[in-house]
């Protein structure tokens, strides 16, 4: 478990409102004939921090990739910020510019500088003037504590720094929801903390977050709900306290004993 659990987090500021940010109802997805997601029902309120855990191949990444339509679902409903995801390209683009996503392998654009990575989407999607986009980008780069790297290329940064740039790049679109797809799995142990700290800061500001991660310390410290998935289904969801101290299903117990047992 990482040091994040030691950090004192002011949960009182992290208000969850009644407003629904994401609603997934009865959603199913297949890869060919393989049924990856089965009858997913999930409602996320604004300001919620949800951690999705589960063994590999359980469909957790696929689930959050459905939320911004990187993957298409075949039945059921996904409504993000009141916009239903259908094959309508306009809706998809609208949802994508509202939802930020951070990937396991950062996926920064290697041919652009850090600053250009951060200003590209605001300039070309939101039509923000370049000057203003650069100011915003610098503000977020300061927030993730790497303003001095703004004119370097991603290849010159460490993994942790790249992931923080990726977070800043998403934030520059001023998203209302952030999705994290195993943001620390590709990082050296020494760099995990700097990324988690950035994510905790975001949570403290009330960002709606869904995070697929194996960092159980982060889940305990930040999440207000932990979802456990296996074989494409939601097996258990509960508050982190209950989830870790008092898991209900046998599958969850086995999973927890395996990842916490050493």
């Amino acid at each position, binding site marked *: 478990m990482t040091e994040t659990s030691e950090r004192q987090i002011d949960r009182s500021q992290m208000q969850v409102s009644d407003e629904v940010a994401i609603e997934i109802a009865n959603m199913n997805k297949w890869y060919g004939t393989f049924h990856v997601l089965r009858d997913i029902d999930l409602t996320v309120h604004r300001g919620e921090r949800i951690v999705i855990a589960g063994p590999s191949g359980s469909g957790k990444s696929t689930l959050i990739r459905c939320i*911004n339509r990187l993957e298409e679902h075949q039945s059921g409903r996904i409504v993000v910020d009141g916009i239903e995801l259908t094959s309508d390209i306009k809706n998809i683009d609208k949802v*994508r510019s509202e939802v930020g996503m951070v*990937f396991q392998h950062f*996926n920064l*654009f290697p*041919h652009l500088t850090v600053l250009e990575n951060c200003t*590209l989407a605001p300039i070309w999607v939101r039509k923000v003037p370049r000057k203003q986009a650069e100011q915003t980008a610098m503000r977020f780069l300061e927030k993730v504590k790497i303003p001095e790297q703004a004119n370097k290329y991603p290849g010159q940064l460490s993994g942790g720094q790249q992931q923080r740039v990726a977070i800043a790049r998403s934030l520059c679109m001023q998203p209302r929801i952030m999705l994290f797809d195993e943001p620390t799995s590709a990082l050296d142990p020494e760099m995990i903390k700097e990324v988690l700290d950035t994510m905790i800061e975001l949570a403290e500001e009330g960002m709606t977050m869904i995070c697929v991660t194996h960092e159980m310390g982060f889940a305990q410290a930040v999440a207000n709900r932990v979802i456990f998935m296996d074989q494409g289904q939601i097996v258990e969801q509960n508050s982190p306290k209950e989830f870790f101290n008092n898991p209900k299903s046998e599958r969850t117990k086995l999973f927890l004993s395996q990842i916490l047992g050493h």
Partner: protein
Amino acid sequence: MSELHAQTVPFVRDTMLPQQPPPNRETGALHWLRANLFSGPINTILTILGLLIIWFLVSHFWDWFAHSVWNAESLTQCREIIAATWGEDARGACWAVIRERWHQYMFGFYPRELYFRPIIAFGFLFVALAPVLFSESVRIRRIVLIVAAAATLILSVMVGAPLPWLVFAAIVMIGAVVVAERNAPWLLIFSALYPLLGVWMLWGGSAWGELSVLASVALGWLAWRLSVRISPLIAVIAGVAVTLALLLFVAGDAAEDLQSLIPLDITAIDSDQFGGFLLSITIGVAGIALSLPLGIILALARRSDMFLVNKLAVVFIEFIRGVPLITLLFVASLLLNYFLPPGTNFDIILRVIIMVTIFAAAYMAEVIRGGLAALPKGQYEAADALGLDYWKAQRLIILPQALKISIPGIVSTFIGMFKDTTLVVFVGLFDPLKGISDFVRANFAWKGVYWEPFIFTGAIFFIICFSMSRYSMYLERRLQRDHR
């Protein structure tokens, strides 16, 4: 071992070691020779073998080059001079043929008093290309522009360009040097206009023809601009439709009317009069400039999810790649006449350019498809996740990276295509290698001269192709973004 280990385990470093320079290596020429040429028995044998081959080649050809004759009026005279100077059995090169006929190798049958037009057009080509090829390195661009300006003006004076043309060339080229220092992107305006300007300078005739084409394109752009807010697709269709309609039905008559009102013409040159490197470079440059965008579109189409677009691209690419270029050239020169309405005057060089372009574009598409496939999927996903639409993602994220990966393949295709322009000899055009050489040998004075024209044209092809290759290496270095 275990005792030693036991002693070393309880150890705490109290000072960190500073960096030290690496140990001095053996240096010097002798060391280099030993390391690179004589490092082992096999390397030594190969080195000696290599030296022997080089010696054999040099000794074989040395006399021939050393016995060069530059001043003669015919091959027979050349041989007499060689025999008189170096003895009866001596063999020697007769470069006199190049000295006397170099202009045909360069310009074909272009009128001699108008040589300045292709020269200035070629000089302008560098002005048009400089902002595209050297957008990032100010120093190289400056050198290219200054050298091109100086060479163009000197050569134009040497071939006797009239004063107004000299002034025009001087204004454009010196202006380009100045603009490049102040605000280089403005040069791109010239790059955009260059195709029409170049065509007008090479073929001559009324400038109203080119101006009416320009006006048609400008009006098409206006149509695109006005409708782009409604829908990007409709705007593209509207723009293309307006341009094509104007070109087909209005531009020709308008140009004639305007010409009769305000004459704006220079001596018209027929495509038959083109030849030599003027022909090769015209076809090559046009083919290169057109095949890259067409290749990109084909590559994107081949990776498209849309069934019909995808299949059409596959059929086009596979068909064109499966057919020899000569077949396409024959189609261009012979078969097209059957399909076109009688009396249509469809320029042979234009037909050849179209065929060479689609041939190169099919190869280009596959090269670029390789670059697209080499990009990690994450790049597409990140672009999608940020809300970029397909075209923006392609233009800003995917293509810059895919094209960079494909540079060696793209330039190889360019080089291959440029050399393939010699095949136009089969449709009756005078390429430098065979067309012009056969023409030169048809004269009794130069009957039987083979090696010298081959070496001469070969050397020029080599210089051009080698420059392209070096440029591609420069560009790759320039675009290197990691490990800096």
